[in-house]
């Protein structure tokens, strides 16, 4: 229906209202921007970095390491230690010792002061963190600068203040720290996820062993330098870099009292099955429905849809990857969406104009491409940005599919890339039915100008975060987490404290 056709004169045609077509807008020529790259010389990456255990950087026991690359250029940024079971064991022992000897004996207000310090140093070194995050992970500098790093600092600042107020958060209930937390984080928001894990765990009096993702270990290791700068007692936070087997060794370690994991539903289930710890929180996959009613502010909704699925290359567990559009407004919305995605600038993550950066890794790109193929095989119509992509590095053009069936793989499975599945509905009941027709339940979006409809919809959608007339908003004070197979436990807000406390 909205497929791009080419006329005899050679100009691309796209659908217009009432079944007519019009020439496609060519933003790549009309709105070319001069390059505006952020300088990367603020960052010095050591050729080889060790784990951060007991307050010091140490080599892995076997001396193994692996390379981390810049996904936008495929250039090697440096080597980091490859964690083994022995390294994990060392880190857990350091965390246990720090818990028993230091951290659990510290007055709560003092714990909080360390976190305030960490937050302040993060703000002071914000530029460094933003550049490094974009180099190692491929995300646009505008996002790492304006979202990831400030939110990470804010998260430490927010939880710092909770440290000496826990009794107030659980009125009538008694709480106690759990002990040593093993925390495994993904590659999509490397520093921010480290902050989401460490800040509440430390504020509530636990010590931590953190395992960053293999493709994005660098900002976590830079954070370790911040912890040293803040004089955080050795062993309170330990960081072990490595692959899935390192994470598995941590999650199933018998010296761990609590496992916090963010990642895929498949791995989350494996962790639930093998964890020895009694306390577990999982923040897993999603397939959020973004529901657009005909009575919404359509242009704002288009911005929300674009932000919902193309933010961070779609590497977002709560991405609005299923668009449910009220049938009567489908064609008009698709026309606007089509125009909008042609304006998105895909390219150098360090360029301040870039909207969409590099796909995080070669293997993730392959996964996304498999789903693009699956969408076409399932009979859906594919629409992509016509901009040219850089030659080197891992890239995926912003994509949406129309004519998608509920049963299609691209409507059911988490793609974790800039790929949107568009479906339609006629009644609110049908929209709810379709929105809930998934094993996931992390987030959802509603676009309508009618207040009562918002409340009706949000009360029936089985999702942990509902964005009404907005999408992909995050704040340390706002609890985040899933229903159903998107995991359990909350991160953020007063609710996030419970994940790291024994509550009676």
């Amino acid at each position, binding site marked *: 229906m909205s497929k791009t056709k080419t006329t005899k004169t050679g100009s691309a045609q796209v659908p217009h209202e009432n079944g007519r077509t019009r020439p496609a807008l060519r933003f790549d020529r009309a709105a070319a921007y001069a390059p505006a790259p952020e300088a990367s010389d603020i960052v010095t990456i050591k050729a080889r970095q060790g784990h951060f255990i007991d307050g010091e950087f140490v080599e892995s026991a076997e001396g193994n390491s692996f390379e981390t690359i810049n996904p936008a250029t495929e250039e090697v940024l440096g080597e980091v230690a490859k964690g083994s079971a022995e390294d994990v064991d060392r880190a857990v022992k350091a965390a246990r010792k720090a818990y028993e000897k230091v951290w659990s004996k510290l007055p709560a207000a003092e714990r909080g002061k360390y976190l305030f310090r960490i937050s302040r140093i993060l703000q002071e070194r914000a530029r460094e963190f933003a550049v490094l995050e974009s180099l190692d992970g491929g995300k646009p500098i505008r996002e790492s600068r304006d979202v990831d790093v400030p939110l990470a600092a*804010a998260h430490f600042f927010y939880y710092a203040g909770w440290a000496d107020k826990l009794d107030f958060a659980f009125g009538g209930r008694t709480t106690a720290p759990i002990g040593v937390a093993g925390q495994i984080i993904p590659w999509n928001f490397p520093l921010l996820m480290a902050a989401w894990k460490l800040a509440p765990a430390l504020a509530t009096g636990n010590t931590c062993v953190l395992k960053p993702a293999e493709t994005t270990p660098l900002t976590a290791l830079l954070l370790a330098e911040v912890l040293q700068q803040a004089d955080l007692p050795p062993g309170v936070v330990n960081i072990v870099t490595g692959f899935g087997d390192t994470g598995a060794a941590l999650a199933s370690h018998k010296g761990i009292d609590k496992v916090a994991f963010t990642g895929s539903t498949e791995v989350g*289930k494996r962790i*639930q*099955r093998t964890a020895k710890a*009694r306390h577990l929180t*999982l923040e897993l996959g999603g397939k959020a429905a973004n529901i657009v009613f005909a009575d919404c502010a359509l242009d704002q909704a288009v911005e929300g849809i674009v932000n919902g699925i193309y933010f961070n290359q779609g590497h977002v567990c709560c991405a609005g990857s299923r668009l449910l559009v009220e049938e009567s407004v489908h064609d008009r919305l698709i026309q606007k969406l089509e125009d909008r995605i042609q304006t998105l600038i895909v390219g150098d993550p360090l360029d301040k104009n870039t909207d969409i950066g590099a796909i995080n890794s070669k293997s993730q790109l392959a996964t996304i491409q498999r789903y693009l193929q699956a969408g076409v095989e399932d009979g859906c119509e594919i629409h992509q940005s016509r901009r040219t992509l850089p030659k080197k590095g891992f890239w995926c053009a912003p994509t949406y599919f129309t004519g998608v069936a509920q049963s299609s793989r691209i409507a059911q499975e988490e793609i974790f890339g800039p790929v949107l599945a568009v479906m339609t509905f006629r009644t609110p009941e049908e929209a709810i039915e379709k929105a809930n027709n998934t094993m996931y339940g992390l987030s959802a979006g509603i676009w309508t100008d009618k207040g009562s409809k918002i409340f009706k919809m949000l009360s029936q959608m089985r999702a942990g975060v509902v964005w009404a007339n907005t999408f992909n*908003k995050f704040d340390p004070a*706002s609890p985040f987490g899933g229903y159903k197979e998107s995991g359990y436990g909350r991160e953020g807000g007063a609710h996030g404290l419970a994940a790291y406390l024994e509550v009676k």
Partner: protein
Amino acid sequence: MPRLAIPKTYKMLIGGALVRSESGRAIEMSGGNVCRSSRKDVRDAVKSARAAWPGWQARTAYNRGQIVYRLAEMLEARSGEFAELLGEGGGAEVAASVDLLVHYAGWADKYQQCLGTVNPVAMPYFNFSFPEPMGVVGATANRGLNGLLEALVPAITGGNTVVVLADDGSAIVASEFSEVVATSDVPGGVVNILTGLQSETLPHLAKHMDVNALVLTDEPQRQSVLEEATENLKRLVVSAPGRSSLEQIRLLQETKTVWHPVGV
């Protein structure tokens, strides 16, 4: 010649009806025969619980509180009977059970305000979080009347529907309590009580994909269901001594957070 007594056929509660096991099996107990539920009974009970859930969670919190209170009234009315059934210390246990019901009845329209928050986000958005029931809760009970109530009352007070597996030791108490539920105002399917062998039925409850959470009596029981219950990430709650009633309710609640822009 003394009059011949009429012994009771003990039944289970599924979908609001008092029924015997579809399997036609029973376990012989000193007080009589109790139903030995089957996999099919478990499935029927989960189906009833799922069907009853939308209506139950949509009732006003005030109304749910009144219905839990009605359970207390009905149990109080039969307290002599239960005291006798429970044997030594039975009177105190029944009194404690009635008081537990009254306590939770009061929670029905209050825990939301203890667990809900308005979140001061650093953007022009109104943001709030509130608890929502998980859905269908499966539970095991093995400690008399009190254990049975601790397994099911926090769940239903919070808007969940339940399927309780009573072990053979408390089967008669559970069957009697089924009659209390059936004669109070609890809508059919909100509470389902099965008797029999937990070792037979728990695995089926644990692997049922339409069960959202399991309330278990101890850690070994959690370990025993872990593999199957993980398939759809059931929330696993293990009883712990000294846990407050509010925390019991919270553990069977999800948290939903809502964002909306502030502007004109």
